[in-house]
């Protein structure tokens, strides 16, 4: 699926809920589907800092596409990580490098982009793009 259509799907999923609590319920549920990082990668090397919760992220490259796995000690953070993985994983490095994060706004997660809370989120996106960049250089 193209990044745009994945984003649209996510927006649709969230837009059926008016209430914040329902949106967060969905996020918490989504967290459970996060492609789990293998234990061997859950190390400080894979830790993304800058957030009140911790996130571990790993990337691999196969057939021109980047695959992400992750974990977090906070459930909501994990839900957000999963959203990002749905958008970024199984995409080409170029698609990842050009992604527009407008959908986070549309589902009302913009405040997670605020300098405080989501230094984490911003760092996560930055890290994902960095992986894409590295794979592109190595294989392009």
């Amino acid at each position, binding site marked *: 699926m193209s990044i745009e259509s994945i984003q649209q799907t996510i927006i649709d999923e969230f837009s059926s809920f008016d209430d914040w609590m329902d949106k967060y319920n969905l996020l918490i549920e989504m967290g459970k589907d996060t492609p789990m990082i293998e234990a061997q990668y859950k190390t400080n090397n894979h830790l993304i800092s800058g*957030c009140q919760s911790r996130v571990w992220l790993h990337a691999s490259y196969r057939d021109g596409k980047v695959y992400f796995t992750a974990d977090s000690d906070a459930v*909501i953070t994990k839900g957000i990580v999963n959203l990002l993985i749905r958008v970024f994983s199984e995409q080409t490095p170029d698609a990842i490098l050009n992604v527009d994060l407008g959908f986070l706004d549309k589902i009302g997660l913009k405040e997670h982009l605020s300098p405080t809370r989501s230094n984490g989120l911003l760092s996560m996106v930055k890290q994902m793009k960095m992986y894409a960049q590295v794979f592109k250089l190595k294989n392009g």
Partner: protein
Amino acid sequence: MNPNLDVSAIRADFPALHQQVFKKPLVYLDNAATTQKPKVVIERLQHYYELENSNIHRGVHHLSQQATVAFEQARKTIAELVHAANSYEIIFTRGTTESVNLVASSLGRLLMKKGDHVLVTAIEHHSNMVPWQQLCEQYDSNLLVARFDQQGVIDLEHYQQLLEKRPKIVAIAHISNALGTINPVKEMISMAHKLDIPVLVDGAQSIAHCPIDVQDLDCDFYAFSAHKAYGPMGIGVLYGKEKWLEKMPPYQFGGEMVDQVSFEKTSFNCLPFKFEAGTPNVGGVLGMETAMNYILEKGYDAIAAHENALLAYATQQLKNIEGLRIFGESPNKASVISFLVHEIHPFDLGTLLDKMGIALRTGHHCAQPIMDFYNIPGTVRASFAMYNTFEEVDVLIQAIKKASAMLR
């Protein structure tokens, strides 16, 4: 003093409390981070900037004179509030953190030599720990750290043992912002004074909640911030005993703190000006004075009674929640409650509570060593001010239950 607080009248004084957040009425329980401000304080700032604004102390003109008189009157008000022997023992700073840094730097230079020690407790806020740690590093010396127990109470025997290593300075919190522990500072000061060691008390968490008498405590320094006591940001106080302030070298240079200057030699002004470099925050000082008068008008006794009742009620209600653990159970405790529910990450809980209109703090509360001690990533912290209500505690309890159910 009125022993009973008219909480609804008080709430009417605080514009910030009457707003909605995510379509829910705001329940503001982040008071240990900063309190909201009563109208009188906001209006004091407004009036100052509309009609009184001027640079002070050296101005010959009317506005400057008037502002100088008001500024120095505020110093007297604060001196009376904390029962300082002299108003020139009140130094205006940017806040607690700057007050502690001032003493660490200046008293450090006066007293410290290579190999000397400084003593703090293990429940200090970073602002009353890191300055001393860095001072020790500078003097190739050790920071001595008094232990606390599982309840969050300082181990006075350990404290006494450490005192016997003859640290040059002792720095202790009056009230812990992370655990709510009220330290027996008077006793701790007297223990230190038996060995002639000066004591700085970090009063950031106490000034809004209990009467302070620096002469009765006999502390050598007392530091606090206006913004945690209904006053504006960017202004705070260092009280220091004259005998120390006189001897200490100035901390920052320039402006009113200078007496005579030539390129060869500079002499410094007398107290309190010696420690107040640059144009002071006149508006901030007047706003702080108004905030302190607001507290006095309500009465520390009435405020403490109300906050203690809130603390007791909230503690009891929280304990009924399955899986909830409270961190900090000192018998002598201020209205700050840190807790966790089951293994739920504090950040998750805080996020959902926020969506239900409840403002509280999650994380390590700038007291990372405490979190390391309990081996937790942080806590959720609710902290009460004079304007909080029992109904708000009920809202909090229901919200915690709902969020916890979602997060398990």
